[in-house]
């Protein structure tokens, strides 16, 4: 396990992330709808902590009308870590950097993305949500706290904490141009 953590740490810190297309033989779980079907993209400044390791980057998420969640995680330099599609508690990793492509990492990643999708992204999609809401997913040994700007997943079973802070994309584009 330590080996995997070191892999992730090194891979994500710099551009030393890489990508791998899921094997063509793997089952397609969800079609997720076309991009044109989607509502707006949600941008999150993301930090992932596991043990003593710390990863930062950006998570971009879209929720389709069929409620499937599609997303990408990249590091700050623009190199993609993974793509996913999640629906009804199941997640398919469409793309995963080879250095992360280990059985254990796939398992934990799919679990945590499923939790985020079902209890986080869809909650924050509701624009009327103004209060902090905490969900204790007892059966999964995890908890999620959401507010209108932030989602925090605490995966107690695997000692992973994922924090997502919303970025306003309009502001983002404006500032980048300036």
């Amino acid at each position: 396990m330590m080996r995997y953590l070191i892999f992730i740490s090194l891979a994500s810190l710099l551009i030393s992330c890489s990508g791998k297309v899921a094997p063509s033989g793997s089952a397609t779980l969800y079609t997720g709808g076309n991009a044109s079907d989607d509502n707006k993209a949600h941008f999150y400044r993301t930090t992932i902590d596991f043990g003593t390791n710390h990863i930062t980057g950006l998570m971009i998420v879209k929720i389709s009308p069929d409620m499937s969640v599609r997303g990408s995680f990249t590091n700050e330099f623009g190199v993609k870590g993974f793509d996913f599609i999640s629906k009804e508690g199941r997640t398919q990793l469409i793309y995963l950097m080879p250095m992360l492509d280990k059985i254990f990492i796939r398992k934990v990643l799919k679990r945590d993305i499923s939790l985020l999708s079902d209890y986080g992204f869809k909650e924050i999609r509701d624009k009327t949500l103004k209060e902090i809401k905490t969900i204790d997913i007892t059966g999964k040994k995890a908890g999620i706290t959401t507010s209108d700007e932030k989602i925090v997943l605490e995966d107690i079973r695997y000692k992973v904490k994922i924090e997502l802070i919303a970025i306003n994309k309009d502001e983002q584009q404006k500032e980048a141009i300036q």
Partner: protein
Amino acid sequence: MKRSAAILTLIIVSAMTQLSAQKNEFTALESANAELFRKNLYEASEKINTLECSFTQKQNLSLLAEEISSAGKMTFRKPDQLLWEYSSPYEFLFLMNGGKIITRSNGRTTTIDSGSSPLMKELCKIMIAGLRGDTKSLETSFTTSYLSDGRVVRISMLPKNKSLASIFKKIDLTFDASTFLVSSIEMSEPSGDNTTIFINNIKINSVVNDAVFNIH
């Protein structure tokens, strides 16, 4: 000398790519012209002691049909100090200082030894060589080809080893044919996504104090 070399390169590049320029397409430089450009670029890069610039980064996400834009500034000082600061839409700092790599995000600082990973060491070398236009250094890791559209020269680089190839399908460095300064870096990933960094407001050999790199 630098000026005459630049003019000569411009004339040759323009002449050899006149047709492609009309069509706004890139075509390969003939080997003699590529060699001349390479030589001039290397000589110019050797004269760079410090380099400061701003940048805009655009990343296309194929799965989501979305683009991410970010911006910041970079400071380089010979031989191996590079500070890369993102200021929008988030703050992120990356510093290469000798053998150390320091990152800062959300107020949290992380330090690692670049020597602990051969791949990371290689990537640090590529980042500095790419910024400076040091093709000799880049050619140890990539198979390069030289293209031009009559206005700029593009070095298209294909990774030689498996580790790099799993990260980058291709990297294109675009240089102004008259100043020999890098104007953009485009990284294509095996996934089909690509990220382009546009370099602006370049300042060469201005005084860069030690304090710039004094980050802990």
